[in-house]
């Protein structure tokens, strides 16, 4: 080995990615990937496309709900449908997933009720679905932390003698975190059956991927002794194939693997973000031309599918999910005041019990006129009747602590 003097390829380019369906719907051959999707016929491809259409619609719906104040914040997946659907559809139900916060599409494939995804972003709970029921951890907001959990879980499956695989999702920005690198160290050291799935969507909030790396992210894994591949993250078929292939390797006991799905965050980082402050609109146009849904549609049309019919079919599927989401989101119950104290510990905890008791007594003062709980407007019932003292929540939000979602609707002026 000797000093490399060549400049490495830019980390954001997508020239050297594996691909099966190109931007305009052309099907290209790949000896590496083709064998892994030989069972995927047109009908299966329509199903993948439908998945993508539905989650895109869920995503748009959630953005709209945020604007209406029904959701506090929303991190759109727009543009990343293929990476998520393609990879998630490669999983077995006994595989386990450790996602970040943007994997709405993955959760959808897992059978998670989309309402459960909104529960968190509405501010009604810190997480939605039950990880044990769906084999998928809840949204991880601390960048990269979940990748270590995946390495550990995978080690556990190995100790159990199971051939279940673990997959973890993270972004291009996350690759800079110590935890993600340590996860690769541990996975390699323990030969843990974990697949690192990096969605390189080119941005970490306002920072282009070149701030994180001067070399392709997939190469990072190779340095840890982990085989890796760059795949076109906007090609659902290639993502499915690459993930199947990597999972096969992982299950076989050959240790971890790494996929860099080269894709693009077409929307803002979250609904609180304004990408026009930092992003060249031409870049967005470039990637619009590589849209993950359009290419599958074009491919299917080239295979004789009727475009109108296809679109109508997608629309129906999406409409149904969206309508339900709109209808049900307002019914997501707010937590009651004393829910604060639930589940901090699994076993009784004296200090916390005392705090709960005392807070219940505090709330009880306001009980004469209303039950605390969902409808409590306890600010209005304080002893003195002095408004300044009680009526208004002095810190911004409306006074009803258990009422509709005022807090969650704040704070949206900032990106996070």
């Amino acid at each position, binding site marked *: 080995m000797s000093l490399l003097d060549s400049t490495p390829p830019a980390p954001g380019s997508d020239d050297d990615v594996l691909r099966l369906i190109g931007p305009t719907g052309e099907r290209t051959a790949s000896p590496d990937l083709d064998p892994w999707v030989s069972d995927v016929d047109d009908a299966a491809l329509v199903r993948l496309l439908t998945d993508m259409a539905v989650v895109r619609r869920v995503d748009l719906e959630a953005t709209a709900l945020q604007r209406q104040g029904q959701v*506090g*914040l929303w991190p759109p997946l727009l543009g990343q449908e293929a990476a998520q659907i393609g990879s998630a559809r490669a999983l077995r139900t006994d595989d386990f997933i450790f996602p970040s916060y943007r994997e709405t599409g993955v959760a959808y494939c897992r059978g998670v009720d989309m309402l459960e995804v909104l529960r*968190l972003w*509405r*501010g009604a709970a*810190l997480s939605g679905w039950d990880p044990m029921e769906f084999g998928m951890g809840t949204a991880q*907001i*601390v960048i990269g932390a979940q990748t270590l959990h995946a390495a550990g879980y995978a080690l556990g499956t190995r100790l159990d003698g199971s051939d279940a695989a673990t997959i973890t999702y993270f972004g291009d*920005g996350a690759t*800079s*975190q*110590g*935890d993600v690198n340590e996860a690769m160290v541990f996975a390699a050291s323990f030969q843990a059956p974990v697949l690192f799935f990096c969605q390189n969507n080119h941005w*970490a*909030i*306002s*920072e282009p991927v070149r*701030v*994180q790396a001067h070399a392709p992210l997939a190469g990072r894994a190779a340095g840890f002794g982990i085989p890796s591949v760059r795949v076109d993250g906007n090609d659902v078929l290639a993502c499915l194939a690459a993930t199947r292939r990597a999972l096969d390797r992982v299950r076989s006991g050959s240790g971890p693997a790494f996929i860099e799905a080269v894709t693009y965050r077409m929307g803002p980082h979250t609904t*609180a973000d304004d990408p026009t*402050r930092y992003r060249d609109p031409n870049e967005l146009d470039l990637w619009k031309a590589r849209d993950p849904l359009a290419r599958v549609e074009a491919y299917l049309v080239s295979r004789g599918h009727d475009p109108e019919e296809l679109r109508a079919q997608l629309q129906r599927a999406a409409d149904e999910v969206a309508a339900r989401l709109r209808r049900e989101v307002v019914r997501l119950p*707010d*937590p009651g*005041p004393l*829910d*604060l*104290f639930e589940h*901090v510990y699994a076993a009784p905890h004296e*200090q*916390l019990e*005392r*705090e709960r*008791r*005392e*807070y219940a*007594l*505090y709330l*009880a*003062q306001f009980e004469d006129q209303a039950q605390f709980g969902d409808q409590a407007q306890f600010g209005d019932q*304080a002893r*003195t009747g*002095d408004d*300044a*003292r*009680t009526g208004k*929540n*002095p*810190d*911004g*939000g409306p006074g009803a*602590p258990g009422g509709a*979602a*005022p*807090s*969650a609707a*704040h*704070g949206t002026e*900032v*990106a*996070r």
Partner: protein
Amino acid sequence: MSGITFAKALNEGLRRAMERDPKVVLMGEDIGRLGGVFRITDGLQKDFGEHRVLDTPLAESGIVGTAVGLAYRGYRPVVEIQFDGFVYPAFDQIVAQVAKLHYRTRGRVVMPLTIRIPFGGGIGSPEHHSEAPEAYFAHTAGLRVVSPSNPQEAFTMIQQAIACPDPVVFFEPKRRYHDTAEVDLDTEPATDPRVLPMGSARVVRPGTDATLVVYGAMVKTALDAAAAAADEGTSIEVIDLRSLAPLDSAALEASVRRTGRLVIAHEAPRTGGLGAEIAATVTERCFDYLEHAPVRVTGFDIPYPPAKSERHHQPDLDRILDGVDRVLGRPNSLSGVPGNVAEAQGGGDDHRA
């Protein structure tokens, strides 16, 4: 003089510090082109260049650790941690390096870092975006910890923090970022006698019946509470701590000696929070002046709850006034409840021998 926001006051303070000293560099995630998710560094990269305002890779330990190296090289790095809940990956570098290097090297290496952390809740954010981790840093010898509560002091204190030869953890009450006030932008913190030293507490409202100690976002809440109490005939002295470590214990002592009663309010969980240290210190120094045990009104001993619950967790005007009632021995949420331990607190008979 002009009416500007807390956020803008910080921005102006950073600008002054950068103008004054070319060794001041800003580092953090998204602080350049975007100007930070809260826009505190808005326009600074444009005006001072990419060499003074650095967008860093996404890794907090990396940010603080490289800032340490820059300090070795004679720079004065100002680090932005995007949100309170993301400071923990940098904890080792802060606690084991930043705080200790001056001691380790017997003064040969100085660490004039400023670590800016937007902190606290009340803006309806998801998890990890509303924490109050100040007690971890106040317990760490070698650090100074401060928090401004209004635009004027945001402007001066950030400059003082940057000028300080010691590392300063600078907690910004994010829910006050949009508060607006007149700010004297012409003041020179180092020479203007009207500008309080960074380590001093300030009596922001004088009073006689009880001392209410707060910092950061809670100062406004406390002032509102004191105003409400005044309408009821209770005179509360509100102290803005400003310096969380070291404590200005002389100021606390002076006030409590006059009022005989102490209430501390903060958002952070109660156990081991700053309230404990303040209560213990004041009790040590003013025991014979105390009419009642110090009362703590704090966040509960729980992880920060979901946005829809946060108002229950955060002490508000009502809970603070309930604490004031307690310290004054008046009817309060815990009175009259048989068997409740709180009954035995302070207000009862004197059991002394």
